[in-house]
């Protein structure tokens, strides 16, 4: 997919573009807010990655302008400011996700891919399925190969998130943010333990692995 990076540090932008290209995407970079705004208007991008602090025009203003012009392209905002107010400001301006510097590239890649393949929020799904794994969001039941799997409420939400992003890499931080709504890093790898619990329910009894660990990045649910 086509990704536009707006980042004033040229080296960082080049590094990000190279990483995204290696992951099979097309990437352009703009080094200030005005250029970024022009390029975003002209090009057909699937995701915009916008640095919050840029010369000539700051990231929040770029995002607000694009949203005011009716652009619906998913936007990931990058910022060195990591506290809750900044995050709220960023999301209020119209960004879809917020990533705090310094970040791991795997985290950026995972978030960009999740954003690009975001489903239309208008269609409400009541059923999710990945391979022989089925989830009924209304009855709150999970079946694998037709067999009932009993999950705790949080495990259910964890699996739901993984199923909604089946085939994509989701990072530990993303899970902590989206499933637990925590934006801090616990010192202990709590997510790993929850994932292994989930595995013991959806994978182990069935003899085949769907929930994979992606080294250095996170997890991926795949049929």
């Amino acid at each position, binding site marked *: 997919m086509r990704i536009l990076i707006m980042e004033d540090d040229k080296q960082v932008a080049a590094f990000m573009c190279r990483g995204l290209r290696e992951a099979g995407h097309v990437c352009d970079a703009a080094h200030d807010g005005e250029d970024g705004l022009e390029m975003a208007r002209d090009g057909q991008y699937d995701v915009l990655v916008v640095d919050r602090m840029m010369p000539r025009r700051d990231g929040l203003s770029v995002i607000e302008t694009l949203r005011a012009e009716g652009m619906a392209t998913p936007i990931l905002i990058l910022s060195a400011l990591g506290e809750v107010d900044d995050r709220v400001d960023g999301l209020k301006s119209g960004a879809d996700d917020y990533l705090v510097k*310094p970040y*791991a590239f*795997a985290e950026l890649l995972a978030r960009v891919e999740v954003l690009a393949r975001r489903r239309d929020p208008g269609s409400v799904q009541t059923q999710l399925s990945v391979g022989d794994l089925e989830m009924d969001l209304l009855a709150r039941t999970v079946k694998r190969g037709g067999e009932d799997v009993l999950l705790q409420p949080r495990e259910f939400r964890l699996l739901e998130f993984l199923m909604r992003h089946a085939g994509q890499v989701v990072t530990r931080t993303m899970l902590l943010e989206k499933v637990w709504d925590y934006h801090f890093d616990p*010192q202990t790898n709590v997510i790993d333990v929850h994932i292994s619990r989930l595995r013991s329910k959806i994978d182990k009894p069935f003899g085949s692995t769907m929930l994979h660990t992606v080294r250095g990045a996170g997890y991926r649910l795949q049929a």
Partner: protein
Amino acid sequence: MSSVAQPAPDVEGSRFILPSFARTTAFRLTLLSAALFAFSSFVILALVYAATVTAGVRRADNAIAQESIAIEARFRAEGPAAANRYIVQRSVAGGEFLYLLNQPSGRRLSGNISNLPSTRPDDQGRVRFTYERARVGGQSTAEPSRAARGLISNLEGGYTLFVGLDVEDEARFVTYILNSVLIASGLAVAMGIVSGALVSRRFSRRLDDINAAAREVMAGRLQSRAPRNFSGDELDDLASNFNDMLDRVERLMQRMRSAGDSIAHDLRLPLTRMRGRLESALVDAGDLADREAALAQAISDADELLKTFNAVLSLSRLQTGERRRAFETLDLAAIIADVAELYEPVCEETGHEFAVDAADGLTILGDRELVAQATANLVDNAIKYTPEGGAIMLRVRSTSSGAVELSVTDTGPGIAPEERPRVLERFVRLEASRNLPGVGLGLSLVQAIAEVHGAELSLDDGPGASNGDGTGLRIALLFPRHRA
């Protein structure tokens, strides 16, 4: 005095240069009060002077008028000879009056002065004049002219009567008083200047000492302190506060320096490890799987480093206290339940007994995320330091004082009372835990979160260590209760 700093020489150059003591506030104030004193005493004494002079004049005029009436009465009743006799009698008796009775021709009939005063009388015949006193025996002495007042009356038959009174002594007395007053005022101003100079010299010498200490500190000698005289006056108070401030600055700088050292130490280890892994992955002709493993490990090392940086950043952010405006009413039990749910599987895996006892309906004003983070940090620590088989207990209850207490109790080794204040400092890790992962930010982050919430953090002995080696640890956050 020569050491007084002149921070603005450009201004100094364009101004009349006063001796340095004259520029001090104390000197100016003393001078001002001396001037005020001199001025007010001058005004008061001037009023007294005017009143005294007026009263003297009136008294003299009255005496003159009475004497004049007495002579006139005699003149009218018995004629010029009787008046003459009376005047001679009075003069010989040594009265203070001056007399002159002139015949219609202008010739002197009697009296103790020779001529009428040369000054013009006013419309009532009153006159002010000076005269030279005629001595007994008609000898004129060297005595200068004396001040006098008099009254000229025209009598029947063209006679002219003059009665005067010597007011020289009175005038001298008043002048004497006036001079004394002027001298006293002058002395008051002079003493004001001198005492102002002395006071300001003393004052500015002590201020100089404080200034000198400040300059020393600016020049990098942070141990320098302002001298105190322990009198408890405002300058001593200033010096004391100044020194306390320097103590605190010095402590903070030391802490920052040691924080810098420890962060460098904590980052060097994973960086070195990472570099080693990357290097061997590059050099070794190992198979692809080995290289991948080395790279993945390097990435997880980098993640650790990022975590450290983020923790440092959020701690700094927190300590600026900006976060308070996002506060809302929180049910502690709900937050604890979420955190417990997050950690319960971890405890199961690490072999810790985990229990939660949270009273419902206890609300505080705060930030959900921060309170959760503080709780998570405490549980993280408890898991890290409590040996396998130990117990961890999360608890929320109201205290007798009406506060809401959130506590995490473990059965680990505990922290010795004397070391408790230290563990709250940034980056401080007790020697015993140096080999455990983490950067020693956990507790200081909890402390910072407590401060933002106006909560009190306390460390106590726990119920004793599960393996009998230590006291256990109970860390409590005492929040002020907030009812929605």
